[in-house]
């Protein structure tokens, strides 16, 4: 092989490596591109949710036009249901029972994954790194690891497709590396346009159940104060509203560090809720009583975290 041929071989290999790695694109930039792609692209496919040990395959459709988005899920298995997210409103129609639920969640953006728009402040609590490249649904993807810098929250990985920057797979792990929850596309296609659908509310015979229909309130009205929180958690939402089909109000404070959410509930003491730790799938909760109130802290965080937060909560009257 001549010197000239060797030069061209080395040059071609260098170009190949450079194009595969896209130098200069770090994990945060991939996630920013992913957030943008999730908002502006029209895409659909089949996505599998693996939670609580149960696999839930669903048809997924995301339509976007002039800054307006609609996200739609159609379950493939019973209970058959259609879930539509229009901005901050989620509507869920159960086909078999004809039950309709309308929920208002302005603080959530996607059923797939919510990644903060501004990742600059997240560096204090999470480490972002591209740890490899893999194929998901036969599409080459970056593997972005989001590793917390403490044990108060769970690590996760996001597989971001390399051409369109759509998230193809999301896995939440516990602190020993065991997967807790997964969301993964089995097939996906990007379209120029996808239709928006109207949410069809049923007749009076099938009343609509509203969740969080009230506007958020100031957390100063909460009956409790939170004295200790893991680093990075902030108040997102507070509301006092009746729950459990009774008129008895329940205080609900939602906290988030950007990736992980924790809810704090306080209501009048009830024998129905047992104190201590409980778990529902990846969600841990810790309940305790404070005087005549029942406090429950719940979230997709380790049990130690919900217990830590719960034990740092005091009644507002006691502090004042």
């Amino acid at each position, binding site marked *: 092989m001549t010197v000239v041929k060797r030069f061209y071989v080395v040059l071609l290999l260098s170009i190949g490596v450079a194009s595969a790695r896209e130098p200069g694109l770090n994990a945060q930039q991939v996630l920013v591109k992913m957030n943008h792609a999730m908002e502006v692209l029209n895409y659909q496919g089949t996505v599998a*949710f693996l*939670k*609580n040990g*149960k696999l*839930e395959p*669903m048809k997924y459709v995301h339509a976007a036009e002039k800054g307006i988005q609609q996200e739609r*899920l159609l*379950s493939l*298995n*019973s*209970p058959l*249901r259609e*879930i539509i*997210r229009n901005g901050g409103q*989620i509507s*869920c129609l159960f086909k078999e029972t004809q039950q309709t*639920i309308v*929920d208002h*969640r302005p603080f*959530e953006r996607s*059923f797939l994954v919510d990644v903060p728009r501004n990742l600059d402040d997240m560096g204090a609590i999470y480490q972002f790194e591209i740890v490899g490249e893999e194929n998901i649904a036969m599409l080459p993807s970056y593997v972005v690891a989001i590793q917390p810098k403490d044990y108060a929250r769970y690590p996760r990985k996001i597989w971001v497709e390399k051409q369109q920057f759509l998230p193809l797979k999301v896995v939440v792990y516990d602190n020993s590396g065991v997967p807790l929850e997964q969301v993964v596309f089995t097939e996906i296609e990007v379209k120029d346009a996808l239709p928006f659908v109207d949410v069809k509310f049923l007749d009076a015979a099938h009343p609509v159940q509203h*969740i*969080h229909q009230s506007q958020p309130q100031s957390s100063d009205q909460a009956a409790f104060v939170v004295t200790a929180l893991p680093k990075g958690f902030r108040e997102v939402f507070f509301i006092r509203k009746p*729950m*459990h089909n009774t008129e008895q109000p329940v205080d*609900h404070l*939602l906290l988030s560090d950007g990736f992980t*959410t924790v*809810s704090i*509930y306080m209501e009048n003491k*009830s024998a*129905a*809720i*047992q104190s*201590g*730790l*409980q*778990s*529902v*799938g990846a*969600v*841990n*909760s810790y309940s305790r009583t404070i005087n005549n109130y029942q406090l*429950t802290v*719940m*979230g997709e965080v380790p*049990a130690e975290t919900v217990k830590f937060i719960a034990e740092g909560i005091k009644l507002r009257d006691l502090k004042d």
Partner: protein
Amino acid sequence: MPEDLNQKISQFLDNELDHDEALTLLQKMQLQSELQDKLIRYEAISHAMKTDVFLLTKSDFSTKIRQQIQKEPVYLLPQHKPFKRSHKQIAAAASIAIIAVIAGRSLYGTDQHSKVASIVQVAQHQLPEQSSKPVVYANQAAQYPLNKRINDYLQAHNSSVYTNGEANFQPLARVTAYSHK
């Protein structure tokens, strides 16, 4: 003559010889080992031409098979002839008919009342066992408020309940006590 024998062997393999001719040929082959070898060769050629697959067997393959058969023990006692399928069906039908007649007589005979009473008694003995299910349901209903509250909390916490068919507003959420380390 040899060509005539070769023709006979070929016809024998193609099942074209009548009974007497085939018997004569076999008697000759029994006396002449070269004829046996020829039969084996012709059979291999015929098999290869018909199936495109050639399985090479040793020349003494059929001899060994015959010797193995001869080694098999001979049963002098008469063997049981297996029932024909039709006989089995007839026997089963007859049995069912006999049971039906006996059961009918016992129900509608002179001791009809006592027999019915015993059946009722048996049924009554089974009642407590059958009624244990509602007791279980009652216990589950007692747990309902706890699970309902946890469900309500989960539902208010985030929208992941919509993508989880099992935990979705079912009266009994899968709540397990956490075994703390």
